Structure formats: structure tokens, C-alpha cells
């Protein structure tokens, strides 16, 4: 056997092993999934990825769309209990009012996993919860900027999410923590862009005017990619080059920001992974295999993507997920 064949075999084995470690076979298991609805592109992607992950593991996924209503979610969960599913995934629309229905699931000995949001209920009523750490997302974005500018002075303008919303508060806090130690980086202006492209563009236009037509701005930090996409257009309209004249960093990792990164118009994005179901299935697999109790709070990775991470490829991979 020549060396190349050996290498190929080894590589094949590794892939098989790692695939095995990543996705345990759960064929025959019936799992109910009560989704909030499809209010955002990210939500649609989460649904799509959950279906993919289930298919890879041979799970029979029962999907219920609650159309933003808790009563529909409670109905769906009761329905799953009546059908005798093996486990239930819930992306809870609100934090309160789950005690009764979770207790019913526990009584029926059906493990429940919460996805991407927590609930105000006793912890023993659910197996675990899988969510991202929004403060960490802001921190990763801030750390990227600290590393990027080095010792140069840098005025950052911030496009906040909707005033008072949890992601806006947390992503702001995380970013501020990360740049706290770098005295050369200051947030010169901060306004809300309501998480939308149109408002992101409008606010950025105003920032550019009040910062010497953009000459005093070194970077934009947007709490989500949509606002960053709007800001990029505003920067271009002002005759500047987004990505080089003004750096752009944002959070979420939706497909459109990857095409902007590929075009050199955005610099970095932090992923809010839509794959909450993967870790949930893994926790369930371990639980069923030998009764391992997973941690109560599984935190997904806040991964940083820049121009070096094949943005065009990431765009292709994500564009059909429903973002």
C-alpha cells in the first residue's frame, strides 16, 4: 500500500470517526419541535437547520409552528405528550407561564430541551437549554476590533438594536467590555437602528454628516448584520470605501454580510448559530445512552468570520437556509 492510499484511508477513518462523534444515530426516535414562528430570517434558518440535523441522525421530527403565540406552543407540547414522543424541543416565545406544561412532560417522562431562549421555571422541569451568549458575541466583535486596529486611535460609531431589547443591551455590554482596556478605541456616537437595514442606513447617514463626512469615523459596530448592510450603503453614498476607509463589524452571520465581506465591504461578523438543535440532539443522545445529565445551560460558540474564512463559500452554504 503506498503512502497516499494510507493517508487517504487515515483521512477517511478520521472523518468517519469525527462524524460519528458529532452525530450519533438516533434513528427510530420521534422528537417534537415547537418553534416560535418565522418572524426573522434567522428563525427560518434555525428551522431549516433543525430539520437537517434531525435528518442526519435519522430522527423523526414532528414540527409545530406556534405563530408567535404561547398558547399554540402549549397546545403543541400537550399534543406531543399525547402522541408519546421520545423528546421535545421548545423555542419558547416568552419566559413565563411554562411550569404546568413542563410538569406534564416531566410526569410523562419526556425530556424537554429549550432552544435559544430560557424560561422562568424550576430547572428540574427541563433537561437542558441550548442558547448563545449574547454578551460574548459583543465581546468577540470588540476583541476583533482591538486586534485589528492595534495601537491606532479609533472612533467607533455604534448602531444599536431596538432600545431596551435584550440582544441590544447584551451586545452593547459585551463590546464595551472588550474595548474597555484599549484606551485608543472610543465609541464616539451610538444610536438605535432598530435592527433594520433602512434605519441602519438612515442613522449611518447622520453619523457621517456629524463626523466630518466620515473622516472621523474609523469603524462601525452594528448589533446585527442587517443594520451593517444598510450602513455599508450609506458609507458608499458618502463617497467612502466601507471595509477600508471605515471598518464594519457586526453580529449574526447572515448570508448577505458574507457577500459584503467577500466584496471587501465588510470586515467581520460574529455568528449567532442557527444550529441550536445539534447540541440538543447530542445532549439527548448522551442522556439516552447512559443517563448522562447534561449541563443545564449549553452555550453555543460565538464564532468570528472574516475575509480569511472563505466568505463566498459561507454565503453559498447559507443562502438556501431561509435567512
Amino acid at each position, binding site marked *: 500500500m503506498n503512502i497516499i492510499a494510507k493517508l487517504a484511508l487515515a483521512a477517511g477513518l478520521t472523518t468517519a470517526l469525527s462524524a460519528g462523534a458529532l452525530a450519533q444515530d438516533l434513528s427510530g426516535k420521534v422528537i417534537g419541535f415547537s418553534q416560535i414562528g*418565522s*418572524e*426573522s*430570517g434567522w428563525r*427560518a434558518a434555525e428551522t431549516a437547520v433543525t430539520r437537517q440535523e434531525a435528518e442526519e441522525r435519522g430522527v423523526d421530527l414532528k414540527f409545530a409552528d406556534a405563530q408567535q403565540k404561547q398558547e399554540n406552543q402549549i397546545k403543541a407540547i400537550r399534543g406531543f405528550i399525547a402522541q408519546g414522543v421520545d423528546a421535545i424541543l421548545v423555542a419558547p416565545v416568552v419566559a413565563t407561564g411554562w411550569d404546568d406544561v413542563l410538569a406534564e412532560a416531566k410526569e410523562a417522562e419526556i425530556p424537554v430541551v429549550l432552544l435559544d431562549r430560557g424560561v422562568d421555571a424550576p430547572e428540574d422541569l427541563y433537561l437542558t437549554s441550548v442558547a448563545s451568549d449574547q454578551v460574548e458575541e459583543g465581546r468577540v466583535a470588540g476583541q476583533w476590533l482591538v486586534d485589528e486596529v492595534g495601537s491606532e486611535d479609533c472612533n467607533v460609531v455604534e448602531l*444599536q438594536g431596538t*432600545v*431596551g431589547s435584550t440582544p441590544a443591551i447584551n451586545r452593547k455590554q459585551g463590546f464595551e467590555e472588550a474595548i474597555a482596556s484599549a484606551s485608543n478605541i472610543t465609541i464616539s*456616537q*451610538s*444610536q*438605535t437602528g*432598530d435592527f*433594520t*437595514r*433602512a434605519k441602519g*442606513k*438612515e*442613522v449611518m*447617514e*447622520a*453619523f457621517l*454628516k*456629524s463626523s466630518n*463626512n466620515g473622516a472621523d469615523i474609523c469603524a462601525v459596530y452594528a448589533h446585527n448584520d*442587517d443594520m451593517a*448592510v*444598510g450602513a455599508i*450603503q450609506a458609507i458608499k*453614498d*458618502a*463617497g467612502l470605501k466601507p471595509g477600508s476607509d471605515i471598518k464594519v463589524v457586526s453580529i449574526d452571520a447572515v448570508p*448577505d454580510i458574507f457577500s459584503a465581506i467577500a466584496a471587501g465591504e465588510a470586515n467581520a461578523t460574529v455568528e449567532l448559530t442557527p444550529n441550536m438543535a445539534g447540541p440538543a440532539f447530542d445532549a439527548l443522545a448522551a442522556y439516552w445512552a447512559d443517563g448522562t445529565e447534561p449541563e443545564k445551560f449549553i452555550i453555543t460558540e460565538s464564532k468570528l468570520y472574516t475575509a480569511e474564512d472563505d466568505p463566498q463559500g459561507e454565503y453559498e452554504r447559507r443562502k438556501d437556509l*431561509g*435567512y
Partner: protein
Amino acid sequence: MMRRALSRLANPQLLALAGVLLINWILFPNFFRITWQDGRLFGSLIDVLNRGAPVAILAIGMAGVIATKGVDLSVGAIMAVAGAVAATLVVAGYPAPVAVLAALAVGLLCGLWNGFLVAVLDIQPIIATLVLMVAGRGIAQLITEGFIITFNDPVLVFIGTGSFLGFPMAAVIALVLMVLVTLLVRRTAIGLFIEAVGVNRAAASLAGIRSRMLLFLVYGLSGLCAAVAGIIVAGDIRGADANNAGLWLELDAILAVVIGGTSLLGGRFSVPLAVVGALIIQAMNTGILVSGFPPEFNLIVKAALILLVLIIQSPLATRIVPVRVAAPEARK
């Protein structure tokens, strides 16, 4: 003649606009600086015109509706539908003129539907248009399947971000619409008829006015204006965002009309002053953005300023300061 022109300028709306611009200038000294860049005018004042245009266009349609003692809550949703229609058609490969015409037709159709509910079924306008306000956004989401449909069609992008003689296209469109609609209602008897329907529909009908036709006209026009605004907003961000396009803009449009001195009780209206009202609102928004207040203050500052504008226009204020109140009267 000169005195009349002067006293026209002294109406509360223009005073309020001047006041807001003055405050902006104090907060941000470069507010009035306008430069020429890449073949277009560039500056905060131009932003006010550009960003205020969608609400101004909505207000042009809304003024007629409110003059009939009605209200059109569905304009924001119609914007979303029109944007979604235009975007999906150009993405599907249809030429831009077809997409624009289709979007306008859909807007007109939505408006006529409102007119049908109000004029024929006699449903109260606030409820009748609430139906489409809720359903319209759902329709837009169905059309876009929940995605933000992005496009690069040069015609649509030009409508949203282009410029004409240096002025933003959106503002030019708003100006043209304002002139056309003003001529339509003030150079013909239509404006008077609309006001007559607003004062007393039954009496107007007895006097021989075809009030049903007029209601179809004002709601149809409102829908059409909303579609124009929807196309502009979509072109501006090169994408149709069914969830957010036009969200809550119906309230800004109603506010613009009211600031413009049109009575919610119907019977009198002014299209140009409604546009001034929209500019007042946008001047406030832009002022807040360039002034550097923390965003938590946005809504409070805006509300306080609006209250001030309304107090300036109130009967009490005019008793104390006897400025001629430009009750936008029917032309003699």
C-alpha cells in the same frame, strides 16, 4: 399681494419647521452645510428631504382620506406589499417598468378595497383599513416567503437612491406628486367635494355629490401613494423587507397631516401643508440623530417637540398671539 404672501409664510407649520431646523442648527452647527459630491447634493438638509419623502408621499394620500373624516391605517402595510411585488418581479426577471407598474396597480387595488369597505359596506374607516393593515403585512410576507428579497435592478435602485438635478429622486417624486394632487383638488371642484363629504356625507349626497365615487377616489389615491413610497423604500435598501418596510409609518403620516392643520373631523385639508408636516417630523428625526443624544431619549424628545408644535397651532395659542392661523381653507 406682498402682504398676503408674507402672511402665508407666517403660518404655524412653516414657523414650526423653521424652529425645528433652528434647533438642529444650534445642536449641530454644520446642519445647513451642503456640498456637491458625485453629482448630487450632500448634507443633513438633503437627508431631511430624502428621508422625509416616503412619509410626505403617504401624507399626500392621507390628507384626502382624513378630509372625508376617514383614516387609512393600511398605508404602511401597502408599502410592504408594493415593495415585495416590485422586488419579486425584478428578481424573477421581469423588466423594471413592469415591476413598478404592477406594484402601483397592487397599491391602487389595496386602496380601492379600502374604499369598497368604507363607501359600499359602510364600515367605519378605522376598522376597515385596520383589516388591510394586519393582512397586508402578512400578504407581503407570503410574497417574499419571509426572506428579505435583495435586487440590483438599476431602475428600482435609481428610484430609491438616484438623484435629479442633484436632488434625491425620492424628494423629487414627492414634490411632483404634491403638485399634481394639489392641482387636482384645488384647480377642480374635487377638493371642495371631498371636504363636503367630510363635513356631512348625507348632506353632500343630497346636494348631488357622488360621495361613493369620491371615497373610492381618496382611498385609491392613498393606496397608490403608499405603493410609490413602498417602491422608494425598497429601492433605497435594494431589498424588500416585508417585516419592517413602512412599519408604523401610517402613524407618522397621520401625524404629518394633523401637524399640517388638517382636522381629523374632516371638512378641511391642505396637501402642501401635510408635506410640510412630514418635513417637520423628519427634521426632528434627523436632528436627534446628528445631535448625539443617547437613543433612549429619541421618543421623548420627539413627543415633546410634537406637543410644542401642536400647542403653537392650538386655538388657545392663536388667541394669545393673534397670528393669522392658516386654516387651510378651500380656495375662493
